[in-house]
Structures are given as structure tokens and as C-alpha cells.
């Protein structure tokens, strides 16, 4: 039986309609299909594919500060590989990626809690969780910087009730990455929550009822019904989440002041790219760095697709 009865029904309906009218999907239908995807294809070519080729080309050149460039071969890539800050930024970015993925379990738990029958005001909760995601990262960063402030921040105030000493969360190298990561999780949970709520809705209530009759408690039902049947959604969300966390920039840019002693410990690859390209006039090296990031993202995504076979259940 299909997990998504609605889609299965639609498929069946579509099939029966074509057989009824007697026309098979022919070349003519296909041609019109191309017209429908043309706008997206054009947008993709202009805004993604062309810049990609340009970046690849520029990564082999040295840029003048005000235009003009000379071909210098693989020098930029050598610089990227030799630079310690690149590896540090890559390490930080992987930490962001791991922390960013924490948004998924939080979203799954909240989604299954909101799925309880008879719960009122679900849309209000959903909106509340979603608001941080649609808030501009700049605003999010500024507000959280106040919350984290070591002198008068709310975080320290609350922790002081429990006897925790005050702390400069975003300017201490040992906590800065986690402080920013927490904000990342906070601001993205709502997005994944919406995805998971749709996924949870797709699980037939019959299963839960049957399990309840057999005496399965809420935890048991969560682990044996919700999680496995949600695994395709989790897979989709984890790929998206990983790519987004690897490209993280704006939140860190806002939260980390230039003079922050923790800056080396929090800088992401895209942050370093920005610094090279727009402040230090090293556009060529920055292009090489961007390409390196693309390779990392491609490799990790490939890995995820390989591993999914072991844990994703398409019912």
C-alpha cells in the first residue's frame, strides 16, 4: 500500500483518462512539455549554469581591482590548498553543517507532537515556528547578538538564575561556533517543521490506531511508525539542510564583528570567499575557493545518496 494514497489515486485517475481517450503521450505532447519547463530552464542557464562556467574560468585568472584579468593557470588552486585559513574555514563549515542538521530531529519531534489528534491551534503553532525562518538573517543576527551580549544579555540573565557565570558567548572562541549554530537551528527549524508536518500527515491514521490497539505507547509508535515512514522526507530535508549549512554566510557576517577574537574560529568558507573577493581584491583565488566548496557539496551529496539505500524506506 502506498504511503501517499492521494498521489496514488491521482496517478490511477491519470492512467484511466489516457486509456479512455485512447491517446498515448506522443512527441506532440512532449513538445508542449518543453515549452512549460523552458522558463525555468532559461533561468537556470542564465543564473546558474553560465555563472558556474564563468567562475570556473575566473578561478584560473588573476583579477585587476577594477576589471581586466590575466590567465595564471592553477596558481589560485595552489594558494587555496596551501592557505591554513581555508582549512580552518572548511572545518568550521563542517561544524555548522553538523549543528545545522540538529534542526531536523527538533523539527521531527515537534511535527509529530503537533500531529496529535484533537490538538487545537495547530496553524498558530506552525506560524510561530515558521516566523524565524522568514525573518531576515540580518534582523535575526542583531537580535540574537543582544540576547547573547555578555554585559546585559538575556541569555546571561536567565543562566544566572541557575548560578552560571556570565559569559561572552559570541566573542569567546570556545563557544562562538555553537552560539551561532544555535541561532542557525532556531531560525531553520520552522522550515523543516512544515516539510515534516506534510510528511507526517501522509502517514495513515489507521497504522496508529492499529498500533494503539496492540498496546504500543507513544514512543513505540513514534519509532516504529512515524520515523520509518517519514524517512524519504527526512532524506530530502537532510540533503537540503546540509547544502544550506555549507553555504552559510549572512548570519555569521552579521553576528561576528571584524574585531571579534573568535573570528578565525567561526569564519565559514563563503565568509572567506566574501573577504577575498570583495575586500582583498583576490577574485581569482576566491573563484577557486568557491569551486572547492562546490566540489565538497557535490561529494557530500553523492555520499548521502549512496547511504540513503540503507535507511530510507519507500513504502
Amino acid at each position, binding site marked *: 500500500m502506498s504511503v501517499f494514497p492521494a498521489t496514488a489515486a491521482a496517478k490511477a485517475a491519470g492512467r484511466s483518462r489516457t486509456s479512455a481517450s485512447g491517446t498515448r503521450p506522443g512527441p506532440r505532447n512532449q513538445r508542449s512539455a518543453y515549452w512549460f519547463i523552458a522558463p525555468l530552464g532559461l533561468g537556470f542557464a542564465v543564473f546558474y549554469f553560465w555563472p558556474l562556467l564563468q567562475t570556473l574560468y575566473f578561478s584560473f585568472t588573476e583579477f585587476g*581591482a*577594477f576589471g581586466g584579468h590575466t590567465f595564471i593557470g592553477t596558481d589560485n588552486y595552489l594558494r587555496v590548498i596551501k592557505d591554513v585559513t581555508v582549512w580552518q574555514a572548511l572545518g568550521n563549515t563542517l561544524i555548522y553543517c553538523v549543528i545545522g542538521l540538529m534542526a531536523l530531529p527538533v523539527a521531527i519531534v515537534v511535527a509529530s507532537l503537533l500531529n496529535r489528534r484533537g490538538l487545537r491551534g495547530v496553524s498558530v503553532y506552525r506560524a510561530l515556528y515558521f516566523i524565524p525562518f522568514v525573518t531576515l538573517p540580518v534582523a535575526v543576527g542583531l537580535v540574537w547578538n543582544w540576547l547573547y551580549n*555578555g554585559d546585559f544579555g538575556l541569555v546571561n540573565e536567565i543562566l544566572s538564575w541557575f548560578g552560571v557565570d556570565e559569559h561572552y558567548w559570541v*566573542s569567546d572562541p570556545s563557544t562562538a561556533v555553537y552560539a551561532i549554530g544555535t541561532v542557525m537551528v532556531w531560525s531553520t527549524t520552522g522550515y523543516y517543521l512544515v516539510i515534516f508536518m506534510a510528511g507526517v500527515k501522509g502517514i495513515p491514521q489507521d497504522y496508529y490506531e492499529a498500533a494503539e490497539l496492540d498496546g504500543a505507547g507513544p514512543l513505540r509508535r513514534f519509532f516504529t511508525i512515524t520515523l520509518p515512514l517519514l524517512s524519504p522526507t527526512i532524506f530530502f530535508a537532510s540533503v537540503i539542510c546540509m547544502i544550506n549549512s555549507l553555504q552559510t554566510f549572512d548570519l555569521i557576517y552579521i553576528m561576528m564583528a571584524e*574585531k571579534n*577574537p*573568535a*573570528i578565525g574560529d567561526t569564519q565559514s568558507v563563503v565568509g572567506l570567499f566574501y573577504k577575498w573577493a570583495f575586500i*582583498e581584491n*583576490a577574485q581569482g583565488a576566491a573563484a577557486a575557493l568557491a569551486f572547492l566548496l562546490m566540489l565538497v557539496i557535490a561529494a557530500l551529496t553523492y555520499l548521502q545518496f549512496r547511504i540513503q539505500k540503507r535507511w530510507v524506506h519507500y513504502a
Partner: protein
Amino acid sequence: MRRRTLLGGAVAAPLLAACSGGGGGTDSGGRTTLSYGMWDPAQMPGMEQIIAAFEKRNPRISVRIQLTPWASYWTTLKTSMRGGTAPDVFWMNAVNFQLYAANGVLEPLSGHIKADATPVDRHPKALVKLYSYRGTQYGLPKDFDTIGLWYNKQLFDKAGIRYPDASWTWDDVRDAAAELTDPRKRVHGFAAEMDRQIKIYPAICAADGYVLENGRSGFGDERSIEGMRFLTDLIDRGWSPPQSAMVESVGRVRYWSEKVAMNYDLSAMAGQMYAVPALKDHGGIAVLPKGKRRATIIHGLANVISAKSDKKAAAWKFVHFMAGREAAEIQAKAGVTISSYEGTQDAWLESMPEFDLKHFLEMQEYAVPYPSSKNTAVWENLQYPLLGAAFSGKGGIETAARTLGEQMDRALKEERDS
């Protein structure tokens, strides 16, 4: 037929308008509109007064201010230079000047200066020189800044210490900082913030060290290290908040909220300090204390013309006007910065009678020009990440400074080779 002509007219009209707008650089009425790029909103009123005076004398030219926040000013400018939409006249600082001049995107002014007898010699020599590249003048100074010692008279009175004056040395600062620090009230004697222009460079120069000389970094020099140690030592002893605390509330804000008794800060901040009632009442100003010698950093902005501008004649008229006495006097009265034109500074001094602003002018005598090279941003960006730990009370300023010196030398070498 009729329909076609109508359509033709509709297509041609914007084309014609575009030609007259861009081609000759003049609008239909023979008026030229210049765009003037700047970043400081605090200077807007003063600049508007200068523009009004200029437009009165040049009725055919009007100037429109293009304000870009400091944080994005240089990236925006660089991109708009490439795209050909840069302002005709804009503010330039020492850090970026050589990069722009070397790439030929600034209009050379030496010929104009000679032809119109612009009073260049009435501006401080060190500043004029900051804006010449390989013997050609590209910018004319509009103002200058020095760093002074700001102190809170009320906190000094409470601690029973006499006010800082020209006789003060680093020892006096240390003694006073120890007395003024009150952990229970979260008051610190000094703000030894990691800031190149207002704290690090003045301290290095006062220790008889240097930042950049003959294409070599001075950060590894023993004297420079001693200068930086003066700052980090204040942090280590708890007389200044550590850098991690000053990221979240900067030294200037701590001084404003009377949580720091002494602070090095720019003369350009006078207007903002004056707006704080408590500081207007009991904020004091003194020359920087003496280390091994007396020193402060002098820096000033210049007006430059874009080489890509198609309204250069009008742009020069405006820049020439701004380098003259009339514009300088308006600027000085507006009380934001010290105008660089000799003899017009009295208006600035009188604009805030409660403050001893004259100390900022006195310091010109031994002021060191802000250090810069062709790609200043590259080696400046090395400083904060490398010095951050030492300024957070974790020690190790000696090794950090030496590493910085080596890396900066490498960056300078790359700059020469490129």
C-alpha cells in the same frame, strides 16, 4: 499609418532623452548634475550647506549626495566603478587611495591645480602627500583627524586624581587606570580596545616603533611590540575590559555610558560626544600621553574625481571649491570634523566651547600619517585575527606580533611582485 508614427515616437522619445542625459553630461536646460559619494550621515548637513554655497556660485551645476553606509562603501564603489555608475566626485581615504590611483580610475588633478591656482599649500603637507601617487596629485584633503585622550572628569574627581595634561606619560595612565577601575560598579580605567587607528597605531608610534616603513612591516620590531604591550598589559591587569567584552559594547560606547574613565578616540567623534549631556558637562580632552616619545595618528579624507566621469569640468569646479576657504569654514562651523584648510579651524573650536578641542590641533606637530600601501586592506585584515587572543587577556602579544610581522611582510612582497 498614423498608428505607426505614434509607435515610432513612443520608441524614440526615451532614446532621445537617454542621449541628452548621458552623452554630453548635461540635462535639457544645460544644467549638469554631479553625484557626490560619501559615507558619513553625520556630515550630511555640513556637506549640504557647502553644496548650497557652491550651487549659488555655479547656477548651472547641481550636486546630488549619494550616501552609502561605511560598511559597504568600498565594495559598492568598486563594483559601480566596473559597471560605470560610480559617482563623479567621492570621498577617498588613505587606506584605499593607492589602489585606486594605481589602477587609473582617478582623474589626475595636478594640471587643474596649477591652472586654477588651488590653495593646496594651505592644507597640512602630510595630508596632501597622502593623496599623491608617483608625483601626481589625485585628491584634495577636506578634513583631518587626530587621536586624543578623552576622560571623564566626574570619575576622576571621585577617585581624587588630577586630570590628565601634557605632562602625562604611560606610567600616569597606568596609575590612574588602577585607581579608577571599580569592578563592583563595572567601571574600567581605560579601554585598550583592539583598534588599529585609534589604539594600536598610536601606541606603536609612541613606543618609537612603526607600522610600515620602506615597504617593511614594523610589527615584529621590539619597540612596536612594547607599544602593543602597553595596551594588552592594561587588559591583563583588569584595568581595561578584554577585547571579547569590547566586541559587544565597544570602547566608545563604554565611554559614553561612563563605564570607562579614559579612552583614546578620534577628534571626529567630538560632535557625537557633545550630544551626550553627561559628557558635554564633564567630558575632558587631553593630548595623548607620552610613551618613549609623543605621537598620534593623523588621517584625513580627500575629494577625488572618477576618471570615468563624463562631467569632469563641473566635477573639478566642485572639488576646487571644496579645497577653498569658504567651504572649509562652512565645514568647520558644522562642527563635525576639523577642516584641513589652515586658519579655518577656529570655527570648529568655537562650535563646542565646553571641550578643549585645541589639543587635537596641537598634536599635529608630532602626528604620524596613517600608514598605507597599494593593497592596504590585505595586510590590515591580518591584524585582528592574529592579535585577537592577545587582546582578550590570553597573553602572547610578542609571538602574535612577530607572526603578524612575518605575514605582513609576505603580503607586502606579493604586492610588489604583482
